[in-house]
């Protein structure tokens, strides 16, 4: 997979709340499908399906032990995908901080115009 395709796969994988929750769980340590199925009250096949998507996106890798195949998080692609989201988020946040300032100004004007209110 090219880096761009991998990033696309990571975004797609991160869009699902269950997969995000699985990643959050794996961030605390590796776990097997059985371990993961319990807290999510989902069937093992359903969890396996999500794990496959995460694995294909490079966000997790799975151990060779045929029985347990423990899953662990791959920090690098996750950090990369988060990096893009964070840059995009920050761009908007800068604009919204200007909006905060403008709203303060508007509140002050409103107060002046109707001092009796509020």
């Amino acid at each position: 997979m090219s880096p761009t395709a991998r990033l696309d796969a990571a975004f797609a994988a991160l869009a699902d709340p269950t997969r995000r929750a699985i990643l959050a769980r794996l961030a605390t340590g590796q776990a097997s499908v059985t371990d993961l199925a319990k807290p999510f009250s989902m069937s093992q096949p359903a969890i396996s399906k999500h794990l496959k998507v995460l694995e294909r996106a490079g966000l997790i890798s799975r151990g060779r032990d045929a029985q347990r195949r423990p899953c662990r998080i791959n920090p690098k692609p996750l950090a990369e995908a988060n990096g893009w989201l964070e840059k995009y988020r920050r761009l908007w946040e800068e604009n919204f901080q200007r909006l905060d300032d403008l709203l303060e100004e508007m509140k002050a004007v409103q107060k002046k115009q109707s001092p009796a209110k509020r």
Partner: protein
Amino acid sequence: MLNTGALKLTLSGDREVVFTRQFDAPRQLVWDAMTKPELLKRWLFGPPGWSMEVCEMDMRVGGKYRWVWRGPDGVEMGMGGVHHEIVPPAKIVNTQLFDQDWTGGEAVGTLTLTEQNGKTLLTNTVRYATPEARDAVLKTPMEQGMAMGYDRLEQLLAATK
């Protein structure tokens, strides 16, 4: 996901981006700041170093809006669309299309404002034409689209880290 500041950004489904952000002001003021051109121009600059040059808003169902930003090198970036639903001061549904169409077709935005204890929660859901379009947008501010100010933006982001 990494949401350290006040703005929360999440991906939803395969083609949506959802923003949530709280403002310390009543809903009517937030609505005004987001719908009146003279007020929008004062905060919606786009990337650092850009400014909003054109802001036209026809706040009627079926009415058009048009926004144009200008970058540090005089490069312009424009977008616009049509309002499909307007419920002051609570909700706007509109189409969104950039002039260069780097989002691969029209996106649909749903903005809602809810007020509680004098604070306003903004939720903005943008649904892109395709999953590829959504992912392109997430990568774009740093690549092509707003692109033109790329180096500067990168420097500024590095400086603010």
